[in-house]
């Protein structure tokens, strides 16, 4: 295994809870200074993977090296190198935001002065200065998540694990979190995140692993993965069969659903392609009853990779 460039290397990770097999042989390689996104639906084993890689759980079998240290033989060295932000916020509700950060500074064995400096810097960076002296119960969801992440960064970890960093956040907080993650990456750290959202992986990740029922079913760059996914499409509905016939004839490359009086036209979902499509229909004076734009999402990835939509899988 390479250790100087590989931040995370895992071979053959397996884990069962009782008779329930959660991870069924996972191999991972994450290059230093990159973002790796583990993409999958609930119950696919994302959280379990993060928990094993971050020393929280032990695997039943498999070999892991984090920052060059063997996970089993040198767990303390691994813990010194990582920062973990779990799916559920792990802040101390009886300490203020600032006290939470100072607690982390003490536990990271920073000097008092260094701890204060680091806490102040993180409060400023994560826009928590105004609420530094307040208890986290008074925080919004986004603020809590930022404090949670800030606490994981006090020890200046080289590798950061983020388990579903934006689940449950409103769109604006989500964008803020993406900004933060990009900033972190610019600082040279390695980020391993899990997500249920293709657009999030698309935005952030250098490499994406698609996890399904405890197995990596695909892995690659965003571009590589997108080639596996069927493109988006526009669905057109018509009032009667004659119009459907004409439209199908005019547009050519379409799939027909005669019963629903609908056509599916491949499209990248952009406004330009949509306008072009409507112009062509207009020029033939074909009136359209209904129209919907479908952009590829996780369902499509799953459908393409596993042959079944993700919402049919049973989550834990």
């Amino acid at each position: 295994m390479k250790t100087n460039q590989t931040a995370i290397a895992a071979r053959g990770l397996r884990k069962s809870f009782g008779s329930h097999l959660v991870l069924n042989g996972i191999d991972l390689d994450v290059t230093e200074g990159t973002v790796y996104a583990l993409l999958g639906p609930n119950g696919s084993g994302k959280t379990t993977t993060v928990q094993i890689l971050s020393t929280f759980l032990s695997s039943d079998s498999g070999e892991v090296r984090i920052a060059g240290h063997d996970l089993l033989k040198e767990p303390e060295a691994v813990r010194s190198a990582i920062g973990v932000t779990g799916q559920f916020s792990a802040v101390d509700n009886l300490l203020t935001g600032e006290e939470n950060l100072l607690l982390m500074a003490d536990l990271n064995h920073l000097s008092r002065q260094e701890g204060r400096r680091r806490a102040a810097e993180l409060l400023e960076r994560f826009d928590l200065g105004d609420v530094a002296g307040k208890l986290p119960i008074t925080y919004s969801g986004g603020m809590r998540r930022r404090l949670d992440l800030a606490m994981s960064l006090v020890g200046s970890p080289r590798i950061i694990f983020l388990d579903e960093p934006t689940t449950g956040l409103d769109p604006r907080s989500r964008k803020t979190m993406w900004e933060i993650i990009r900033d972190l990456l610019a600082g040279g750290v390695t980020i391993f995140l899990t997500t249920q959202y293709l657009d999030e992986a698309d935005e952030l990740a250098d490499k994406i692993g698609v996890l399904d029922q405890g197995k990596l079913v695909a892995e690659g760059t965003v571009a590589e993965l997108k080639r596996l996914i069927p493109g988006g499409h526009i669905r057109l509905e018509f009032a009667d069969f004659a119009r459907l016939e004409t439209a199908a004839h005019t547009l050519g490359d379409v799939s027909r659903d005669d019963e629903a009086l609908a056509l599916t036209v491949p499209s990248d979902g952009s406004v330009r392609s949509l306008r072009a499509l409507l112009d062509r229909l207009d020029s033939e004076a074909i009136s359209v009853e209904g129209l919907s734009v479908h952009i590829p999402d996780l369902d499509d990835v799953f459908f393409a990779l596993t042959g079944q939509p993700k919402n049919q899988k049973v989550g834990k």
Partner: protein
Amino acid sequence: MSSFSYALRDSATMLRRNLRHAMRNPFVTVGTIMTPVFMLVLFFYVLGGSIVGGLNGGAKGSTEYLNYLVPGIILMTAALGAEFTALGVNSDRTENIISRFRTMAISRGSLLTGHALANVIQTLISVTCIIVISLLMGFRPNAGLVEWLEFAGLLVLFALAIAWLAVPLGLIAKTPSGANSLSLIIGMLLPFFSSAFVKPETMPDWLRWFVENQPFTSVLETLRSLLTGTPVGNNWIYAIGWSVGLIIVGYIWARWVYNREPSH
């Protein structure tokens, strides 16, 4: 720094955290003082006359009974520390911060040690309050300086035993109310079935056997002897032996529960 000095530093950090919690959420602390005060008032003013009457043929609550009762109330105060510790440990568990500590490079037992030490400080404060109130009510101990120091020493040892038994209970319980119920076995049941309120000689034989041989009675009789000069016999040996034994058992149990795979 060596791993031992890290362990000390991390434990001190966790202790400071717990003391800050106690100050910020004083209801638990106040509760562990109010309950024994309530018991003191109940047993001395409400039931005291009947209890003493039963013994001496009719009398109001006397200094003699108060001197008998107060060491029992002190024992109960210390035992109620179990509630303080179990609730504190359990809220760390249910609020998820334990998950964070588990993935950090900190001394493994420091979180638990911090809770145990916080309980010792909490117990010393509560017991001081109880002693002041008792003195105002007419409690008249005859302990000298040496006896007071020995009293404090045994109290610290006993508070550690209580804390180390309560830590695993707080880790096992899935909810705060579960932690509370489990801790009350230590905090209420064992003090009541001891020689805290009445003499074991007045109890049926089977109960008397339990009361005389359970760990809290030997601790209580030793505390009582140090404060009011009652005969101690072998009790002090058992008191120290039980306390140290319970600390060891509780510590091993707590570390085992903490280190085992987190339940899913």
